[in-house]
């Protein structure tokens, strides 16, 4: 989005500073008078919500690290001490643990928003791929974080997921074992493993922070997509980010925080697993290992394939396929709102993902396995077959003439005053 910042330094100090480090000018241009499409709906508030989630996880995480002991002997007890003894530890710990789930709720809505409105299409391919990378790093961070309380689910979750890499033995014998022992720092998951996971769990959020900065940068080059999928063509298609988009983001964030706080204060353990309040025991596998809810769809894909290597490949491909979405979608129209056929397939994808999430928590037997396979096949077919084919055969609905034409009554010109001086209207 080419536009110049309307920043005007007010004091002589601000002017002096602006000549030396124009950071206020940059921020003003990118986050105050940045043009945002005037028709954004509440699904567009999740970018801001996610930024909040990342900052909140880092803030609560730094506090927790002041009280946590990353050793096999003390980890479990130190988490309990945080919950019982540390001043406000119960609250900060709940914010962090529930925060991970909230982060994933928001990111899944954000991803499906992008898929529905075609936010991955040119010129936003790099923006989208950065988003996939963020999702991947988020999953790694959450996985390592879940290991830290060193309960039974922590221990066995780490055992199962790190063992995924031993499937490399089926390609080159010995490589898988070497990789897994390298990850563990031993011949089984141990305190050594916990220690390095803690170190990486502290590092990765800052990697995420960098990726998010690139994601926002790429967003501000291409500009935001919007429910019509049309580009901003005239000045009246856009409103300045402040106060319009910022106010809407704030409403969305507060609504989200109500849900967040409800879990933190009333259902802090609802999204976790009771077995994780039993200390890790390398000799007893819990009867039913389930990952955190946000990994369940991928876990269901892993178990749907009746071969170890195949399952692992399918699971990682389920994420990797997202990278190619900008090129798999052949439609000229971005938004599914104007794609009568694709719209149905989109909802089938949503149903498949929710279905896989449900099946991931069920034991791998009988009808559960069959349904996992059906949904897994649909998941991949959606991206690899339906996206390219439907884009070619579908006749899209007529697009509105412009963003403003889609939201303003026809005939009335765009109220220019709203753009430049909302307070004088």
């Amino acid at each position: 989005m080419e536009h110049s910042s309307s920043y005007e330094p007010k004091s002589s100090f601000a002017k002096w500073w602006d000549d030396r480090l124009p950071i206020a000018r940059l921020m003003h241009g990118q986050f105050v008078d940045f043009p945002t499409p005037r028709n954004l709906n509440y699904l567009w508030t999740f970018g801001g919500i996610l930024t909040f989630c990342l900052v909140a996880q880092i803030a609560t995480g730094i506090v927790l690290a002041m009280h946590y002991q990353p050793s096999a002997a003390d980890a479990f007890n130190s988490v309990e001490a945080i919950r019982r003894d540390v001043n406000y530890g119960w609250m900060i710990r709940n914010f962090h643990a529930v925060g991970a789930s909230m982060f994933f709720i928001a990111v899944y809505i954000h991803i499906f928003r992008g898929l529905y409105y075609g936010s991955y299409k040119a010129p936003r391919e790099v923006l989208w791929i950065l988003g996939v990378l963020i999702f991947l790093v988020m999953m790694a961070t959450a996985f390592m974080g879940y290991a830290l309380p060193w309960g039974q689910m922590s221990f066995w979750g780490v055992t199962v997921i790190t063992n995924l890499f031993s499937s490399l033995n089926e390609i080159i014998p010995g490589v898988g074992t070497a990789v897994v022992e390298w990850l563990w720092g031993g011949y089984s998951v141990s305190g050594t493993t916990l220690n390095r996971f803690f170190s990486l769990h502290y590092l990765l959020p800052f990697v995420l922070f960098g990726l998010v900065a690139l994601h926002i940068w790429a967003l501000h080059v291409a500009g935001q997509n919007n429910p019509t999928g049309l580009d901003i063509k005239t000045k009246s298609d856009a409103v300045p980010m402040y106060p319009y988009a910022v106010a809407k983001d704030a409403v969305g964030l507060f609504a989200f925080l109500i849900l967040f706080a409800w879990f933190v204060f009333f259902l802090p353990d609802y999204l976790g697993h009771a077995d994780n309040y039993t200390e890790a025991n390398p000799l007893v596998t819990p009867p039913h290992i389930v990952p955190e809810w946000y990994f369940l769809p991928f876990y269901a894909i892993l178990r749907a394939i009746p071969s170890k290597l195949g399952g692992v490949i399918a699971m990682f491909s389920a994420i990797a396929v997202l990278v190619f979405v900008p090129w798999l979608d052949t439609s000229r129209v971005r938004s599914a709102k104007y794609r009568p056929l694709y719209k149905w397939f989109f909802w089938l994808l949503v149903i498949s993902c929710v279905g896989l999430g449900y099946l991931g928590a069920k034991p791998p037997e009988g009808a559960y396995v069959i349904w996992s396979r059906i949904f897994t096949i649909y998941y991949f077919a959606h991206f690899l077959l339906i996206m390219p084919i439907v884009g070619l055969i579908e006749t899209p609905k007529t697009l509105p003439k412009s963003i403003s034409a889609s939201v303003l009554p026809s005939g009335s010109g765009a109220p220019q005053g709203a753009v430049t001086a909302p307070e004088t209207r």
Partner: protein
Amino acid sequence: MASEVEDTSRRDFLVIAGNAFAAVGAAATLWPFVAQMNPDAGAQALASVEIDLSPVKEGQAITAMWRGKPIFIRNRTADEIKAAETVPVADLPDPSARNDLLPEATPALDTNRVKEGKDNWLILVGICTHLGCIPKGQAMADTRGDFGGWFCPCHGSHYDTSGRIRKGPAPRNLEVPPYEFVSDTKIKIG
């Protein structure tokens, strides 16, 4: 007098040689940071354990620890041995004996997974070869799966009375660790 072409190729050589040395230096510096993650000397110290088998009655099983891994020791009944011995290797998903003391190509006959004359004693690393869970089947009340050996509750792998994979996602038979009988009723693992 050197021509310009020669000068350029000399310069190319210097650039390539310089970059190559820098790459070697970078790799040499990086290596310790990668290698530090491998099992350290303490973990590598090949601790061997001795286990007394005399309290384990026929049909019973015990679990020992070796290198942080659970070791399944089962005193098999005559029926269990017979069931294990009569299965043709062609019916097995994994045809290798997976005995650490025998070559990889050794067929997965029951006799290749136990010591001669001690075929009632089955000694295994009790880690599912799928994703590392501990299979059920050691305690009397446990479910032992469709083949009477072990059953992994995580993803539904069934092992037979020789610890060989028969059904489910696990790719390999349960591993037989290196061990020897130091006396009639005592084994040394490792």
